[in-house]
């Protein structure tokens, strides 16, 4: 069992809308995996299923060897996740946010302190540990979330658009951290992004569109296959030139479509 993520025939339907339509792919242990696609293609839905936040309609999904439906807790302990929108408690300090996380993941206190200090130093936030997160910039929040996502030594780090809305300097910094982390620990990184040049550094890239995977390979393979010399061009060739709905994530779109004006979930 070398694959850290194994997805077989995964389908997710919201009533009559199919967000993910029978996709299959796998991610090898230790690799850097890029999952790209236009807005509404099914990226966030897939990630939510990998993270056990959504139940698949159909298909078999395993993360770190555990089934995401029947072995939720084992999956949850194995992954670290950074969501598209910040999921920090803004009223609390950086350290308190990390402390809560360590307790939710049942980390030993001594292990937590050492690990948190090391990671905060890595992302250069050590001096801000006691500041309320409310006072943090977007980039600082992201860096703190990376620390938090790595705190419990996950086998798989999932990042949903980690660099969205950040300036080029911060983006470069985040990439530097991710590289450093991959050099020092055995971790698999699964990420989605809109900045196609970022996928050049991935070991494998899967392009998803309208709920189906339309291309898969190393960046080199994909460039050869589509006859382009940049991932940007590959992406546009593969998914077409039309502009997609920019405002909502695919999951939200489906909700809006079916739950407009509804009070209950």
């Amino acid at each position, binding site marked *: 069992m070398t694959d850290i993520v194994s997805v077989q025939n995964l389908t997710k339907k919201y009533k009559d809308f199919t967000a993910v339509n029978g996709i299959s792919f796998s991610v090898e242990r230790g690799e850097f995996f890029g999952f790209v696609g236009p807005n509404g293609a099914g990226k966030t839905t897939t990630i939510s299923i990998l993270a056990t*936040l959504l139940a698949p309609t159909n298909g078999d999904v395993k993360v770190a060897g555990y089934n995401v439906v029947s072995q939720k807790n084992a999956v949850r302990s194995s992954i670290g*996740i950074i*969501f598209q929108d910040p999921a920090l*408690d803004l009223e609390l300090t950086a350290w308190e946010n990390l402390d809560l*996380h360590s*307790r*939710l993941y049942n980390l030993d206190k001594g292990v937590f302190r050492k690990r948190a200090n090391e990671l905060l130093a890595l992302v250069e936030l050590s001096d801000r540990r006691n500041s309320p997160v409310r006072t943090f910039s977007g980039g600082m929040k992201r860096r703190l979330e990376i620390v938090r996502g790595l705190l419990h030594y996950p086998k798989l780090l999932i990042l949903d658009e980690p660099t969205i809305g950040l300036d080029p300097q911060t983006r470069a910094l985040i990439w530097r951290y991710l590289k450093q982390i991959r050099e020092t620990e055995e971790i698999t990184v699964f990420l989605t992004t809109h900045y196609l040049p970022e996928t050049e550094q991935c070991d494998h890239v899967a392009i998803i569109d309208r709920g189906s995977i339309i291309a898969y390979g190393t960046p080199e393979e994909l460039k050869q296959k589509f006859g382009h010399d940049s991932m940007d061009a590959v992406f546009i060739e593969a998914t077409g030139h039309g502009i997609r709905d920019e405002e909502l994530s695919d999951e939200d779109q489906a909700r809006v479509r079916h*739950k407009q004006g509804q*009070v209950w979930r």
Partner: protein
Amino acid sequence: MANVNQFIKSVWVIWYRDLLRFWRNKVRLIGGLAFPILWLLIFGVGLSSSLTLPVPGIRFVDFLFPGVIAQFLIFMSMFGAISILQDREFGFLKEILVSPAPRSAIALGKVLGGASIALIQAMPIIILAPLAGIHISFDLAGNLLPPMILLAVILSAIGVAITSRLKSLDAGQYVFQFITFPLVMLSGAFFPLRDLPTWLDILTKINPLSYGVDLLRRIALDYAGMPREVITALSPTINGHVVALSTEYAVMIIFGVILFVFASRSFNQ
């Protein structure tokens, strides 16, 4: 045993976060003080000059006092439960739900966090009651506490069971108005639950708050030196008999356990 240990730890983390946030938010701390002062002074003292109770010998403010405690616990418990919707809106709920913490522990932590904050915020009502001419002693405060704890847990459980199933903060505000208003109005907080039309009588009897309000009232009026006949003349009756104090406790505990179990399943979907 490791599972039990993790369960308790998870409940504790969720509870601790709620209290930490409450302590940080000074506006909420101070705002919580304004409500009881306004109620006791304006309504208690103001209304008592124009309203008389069907039972002679009881001052309106003494009658109202337990009702104010109950009403305040309702508002604060519901307000506490709304934090789940804030967490959903601001993303933090995902951080909790993606963690290995047991779902039932998350829900119970929320119930206990909300109940604790509601109880802390209700303390000023008791401390400031002398301002409205109500005599308070440590003994009385200590005796009021058990029914207050039961009420706070029941109400927070109702709040958590509902909010966890709601979509947005907006929806929460409407749904809560719709729920808190009948709960308060049909609890005996503002009028004695006697000589009501049958349909209203049934509604007040299935309202768990009725028994909590009556418990608080019996305890408070007993300390105020009212004769037993006067006090029980305000209590709910079943088949013409006044419901016993122990029965009221039993009903509250049964309601509490049922709602606790119901709330614990909140995040299982």
